[in-house]
């Protein structure tokens, strides 16, 4: 056990699974970085250096730099998965789903079902989500609600290094297509991460903090914002329970419902959009199945319904912060701010 960053945790998960199973390959744009470029062949490991070093160990047959052809190489990864490999396809920014959406939601997601269960598609798509780097509207989205709309996909949103490693190992071993969403602002987060491989089952939420007054469900990076808020709220005598679903499909509805049954109050903190998003999804689930426990409105703390601005000051307004979480908790507690 040693302290590792989220970046290292992801890298280690891939490395260990590639060692364990020769069917695992990594494919994407600049996952090695330097193919045919005349200098070092292992120069990038992706723009955030997450997959750095893997080419050196596994070679170009298993760590494949691709042209800028997302639809092509993700379609290819699906075919390769059907053919017995376990590809990890790297979609650099989740926003680029735009150019390969068909492959993901109409091919990968429906392959098993439409063909009556003949095949497994053990494909993991790793992709970066989230705002905070001022890289604006086409590089900063959180699109896991869109992925979650489609049956046949599993969707993972790890909020910390420990979960990133364990969930990624589960994703690679899973026999269904999994979209693994890495928040770009979390790569430098450090915590204890076991050296040996371990897996975390999908559909099991993590209790981030116990508390009896309000249930806060938070996803990905927002778990940390929720924690920040809860710490301040605790000083005010309000005790928040924080739940991190970790996977949006499957979603651990039981844990959320149990917590709301105990607290009677729910705040959902999510960086994805407010319309047809995960906050709405969870709120609606509780408004149907946990209604009798509810003592207050369900508050969604999300960005506004807008594209993401480049300007840092505006981007800061876009992303939910602790102050907004605190205000939401005050509201469900009936306090005036």
């Amino acid at each position: 056990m040693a302290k590792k960053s989220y970046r290292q945790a992801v890298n280690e998960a891939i490395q260990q699974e590639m060692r364990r199973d020769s069917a695992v390959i990594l494919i994407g744009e600049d996952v090695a970085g330097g193919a045919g470029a005349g200098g070092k062949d292992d120069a990038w490991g992706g723009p955030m250096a997450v997959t750095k070093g893997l080419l050196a160990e596994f070679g170009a047959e298993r760590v494949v730099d691709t042209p800028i052809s997302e639809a092509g190489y993700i379609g290819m990864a699906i075919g390769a998965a059907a053919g017995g490999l376990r590809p990890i396809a790297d979609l650099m920014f989740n926003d680029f789903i735009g150019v390969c959406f068909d492959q993901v939601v109409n091919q990968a997601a429906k392959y098993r079902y439409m063909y009556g269960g003949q095949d497994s598609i053990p494909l993991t798509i790793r992709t970066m989500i989230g705002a905070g780097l001022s890289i604006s509207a086409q590089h900063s989205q959180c699109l896991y609600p869109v992925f979650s709309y489609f049956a046949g996909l599993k969707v993972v949103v790890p909020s910390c290094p420990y979960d990133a490693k364990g969930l990624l190992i589960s994703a690679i071993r899973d026999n269904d297509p999994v979209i693994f969403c890495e928040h770009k602002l979390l790569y430098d987060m450090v915590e204890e991460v076991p050296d040996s491989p371990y897996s975390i089952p999908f559909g099991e939420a993590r209790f981030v903090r116990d508390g009896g007054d309000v249930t806060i469900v938070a996803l990905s990076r927002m778990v940390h914002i929720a924690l920040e808020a809860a710490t301040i709220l605790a000083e005010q005598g309000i005790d928040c329970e924080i739940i991190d679903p970790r996977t949006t499909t499957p979603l651990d509805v039981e844990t959320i419902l149990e917590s709301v049954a105990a607290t009677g109050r729910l705040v959902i903190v999510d960086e994805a959009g407010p319309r047809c998003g995960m906050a709405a999804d969870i709120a609606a689930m509780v408004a149907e199945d946990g209604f009798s426990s509810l003592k207050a409105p369900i508050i969604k703390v999300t960005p506004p319904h807008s594209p993401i601005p480049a300007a840092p000051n505006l981007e800061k307004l876009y992303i939910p912060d602790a102050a907004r979480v605190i205000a939401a908790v005050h509201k469900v507690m009936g306090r005036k701010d």
Partner: protein
Amino acid sequence: MMQSSDQLLLAYRKMRTIREFEDRMHLEFTRGDVPGFVHLYAGQEASAVAVCANLTDRDVLLNTHRAHGPAIARGSDIYAVAKEIYCRQGGICRGRGGSAHLHDVSVGLWGANSGVGSGVALGCGAALAARNRGTGGIAVALAGDGAINQGVVSEALNMASIWKLPLVIVFENNGYAEATGADYAIAGKDIYKRAAAFDMPGIMVEGHDYFAVYDAVGKAVTRARSGDGPTIIEVKQLRYYGHFEGDAQSYRPRGEVEQYRQDKDCLKTFRSIFIAETPGNAAQLDAIDREVMSLIDDVYAQARAAAFPADDEFMHYIYASDCQES
């Protein structure tokens, strides 16, 4: 490669089976109980059959929405094919896919698909997996003339080339993408000439001539198998029916199909070449024709008699965990 007489008779049987199957489907469709969109392969038989004559069990054929012919050519159980088209139990996709989604892993037939052109990308993956796993197999992706205009196809062709994947891409140019003329939609008109852009060989072949298609595909398959990379084959042909059943086809010039049926029908062409070589063979072909006729009767009878999928299996086959046996 020279084909044995048995191989040729098998090819003829398949072509005839497809023709009868599709002609019958054209009639049955008017009864109103064939679900969904149905795209018939009649007229194009020589293509899929000649492709499949070049393939082994290890290989993968990527199907398109015009899926019946390739499925029969590849050797799928014709009863299971018919049941799938009727969306019944015993269908190759357990009734979940229907006519346009014939997919039969047991015979190496993959991915019939509503995403025009997707088979080419999936085929790259099948080829990559075969190579990485050392199975010795190759992949052949079928695609229509319309598919050349889908972006993903260009992406896949480029990747197949730079990685020299063991892949053959067969563009079945039947002249139309739905109601749109291939010559209108495709800049430069000739699909096979696009091959040069992707640094691979491109071959054009007349699709009514089984022997010509067989040879062209054979060259490409040899190239793929020996690790030299992909080839584009453009098969010129014509479909005898509409884009899908129900299509009034007023976009087609009058008499086009009749003329083609007369001059270039693939069964006629096969028959005349085959008999010219060994005149006594006519009787063998006649026998096949008769056998196929009665087979088709039985296939349709059984398909229409089969039960629909069980309602309580609705949520099966979505995830690996739902793949209980039924």
